[in-house]
């Protein structure tokens, strides 16, 4: 863990070398999801509701998933950019060091500029919460935190899976974006607005439903009975990362250097 923070410190210093570019990127990261959110707002202005969901409820959904996404993009960027390590053969260097490959790849990149994105979703979160009639309890607050963390775990899991594929394909796979970017776009609305099979896929296979939809029902008091189950769903969703780590270990063993 100490090693990881050391990595972060070095990366932060190196990114701060290009100060203007750093701030521009941060501002840009703020405005990209802002445009998407503006679109969401305008759609609600026109249609009023989506299958019985009000604007602020969906805004909360949006904020939670975007927060998790930006956090995971900050932390797990190393896995996202992993194909470049394999292509250049730099992964060999990581293998010979006496530390776990996981922490080294995780520490190989860190996007501080994603803070802009995080700030945007945090603002949406605050706005949504202050406009929703939720009677807060400690458990509800914990659930909210769990939702965001669980999202980070799931996104990281997908990044790891995509990175592991590189051991076999060498090239990075654009298709993985369907599950990260696509998953984010899907989960920014409550999952029950979609067709049944989409909802099922994103609840049981890639558990985005456990990040915001199911616990959101509990937060808004829309669930029927079984509070505990709804509170614990984010925890269950986080388990997704475990098989991903297992596959990663398998992949590392399978690795053959590209040479060069």
């Amino acid at each position, binding site marked *: 863990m100490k090693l990881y923070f050391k990595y972060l410190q070095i990366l932060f210093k190196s990114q701060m070398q290009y100060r203007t570019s750093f701030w521009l990127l941060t501002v840009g990261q703020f405005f990209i999801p802002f*445009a998407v959110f503006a679109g969401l707002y305008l759609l609600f202005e026109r249609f009023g*509701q989506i299958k019985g969901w009000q604007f602020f409820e969906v805004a909360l959904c949006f904020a939670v998933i975007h927060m998790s996404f930006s956090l995971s993009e900050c932390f797990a960027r190393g896995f996202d950019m992993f194909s470049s390590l394999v292509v250049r053969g730099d992964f060999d260097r990581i293998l010979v060091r006496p530390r776990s490959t996981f922490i080294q790849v995780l520490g190989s990149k860190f996007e501080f500029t994603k803070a802009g994105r995080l700030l945007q979703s945090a603002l949406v979160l605050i706005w949504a919460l202050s406009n929703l009639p939720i009677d807060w309890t400690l458990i509800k607050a914990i659930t909210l935190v769990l939702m965001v963390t669980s999202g980070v775990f799931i996104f990281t899991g997908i990044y790891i899976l995509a990175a592991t594929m590189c051991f076999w394909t060498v090239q990075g796979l654009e298709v993985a974006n369907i599950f990260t970017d696509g998953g984010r776009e899907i989960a920014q609305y409550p999952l029950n607005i979609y067709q049944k099979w989409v909802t099922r896929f994103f609840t049981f296979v890639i558990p985005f439903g456990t990040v915001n939809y199911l616990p959101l029902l509990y937060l808004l008091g829309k669930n029927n009975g079984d509070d505990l189950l709804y509170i614990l769903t984010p925890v269950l969703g986080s388990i997704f990362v475990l098989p991903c780590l297992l596959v990663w270990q398998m992949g590392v063993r399978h690795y053959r250097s590209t040479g060069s």
Partner: protein
Amino acid sequence: MRVYLSVLKLRLLNGMQYRSAALAGVATQFFWGFMIIMVFQAFYQNAADTQPISLKELITYIWLQQAFLVFVTVWFRDSELFDLITSGNIAYELCRPCELYGFWFAKLLAQRLSSAILRCFPILIFSFFLPRPYNMTFPPSLSAFLLFLTALMLGLLLLVAISMFLYISVFITMSPMGSLLIFGILGEFFAGLIIPVPLMPSWLQNIANVLPFRWTADFPFRVYSGHIPQKEALIGIAIQLVYLLVLVWLGRVSMNRILRKVVVQGG
């Protein structure tokens, strides 16, 4: 003119080599289109009053958007050109016996065209065979289709003319990030990529009508679905032409002016 045509041809052939990348792009865009349609379906399901664009027209609009995504997005860019400018290799480009504006215009045009040719057909063909209500529909008449083709091509030229300003701005700022951001976010929003232009509130639509971005992609797609009647479509094509002429003229003037001042540091 022949020089530009051969640049166009060479680049087209070059772009066609990246077939597996295009295939991955097709899969992503297909998924994306599906997702957006499902969201709109949910919105339309209990919408109280009639909307300015019907769901059927909207679905066609979205599939066209996905098929011709490279005709809409500003971020689809040639980082090679950025590198030329920032690294000083621009000097070689200036030695060529043809005007830089036309040369780059042809290059960028070919890039978008080749990418679109590879991507649009699989998406369009698949989307025709999808079960209702997700399927794409035919245009109402042959003349609407011809108008659509004209508008689409003009829109492509217009977009390339817009994106030329991006490259010109790099001469001044030396970093593409800032202008990419502004062009990218504003351009895509007002081209109807985030929400379709007919669904915007009227004050936003007024802004979108004045800006050139809407004419690149939103307009041709609505001509296709018949949402814009043919008489209006003709007027729209005239507006596209005017925009194109003005932007190309402005681009050439500003580029030539900047090139006169350009300082190439040796190395």
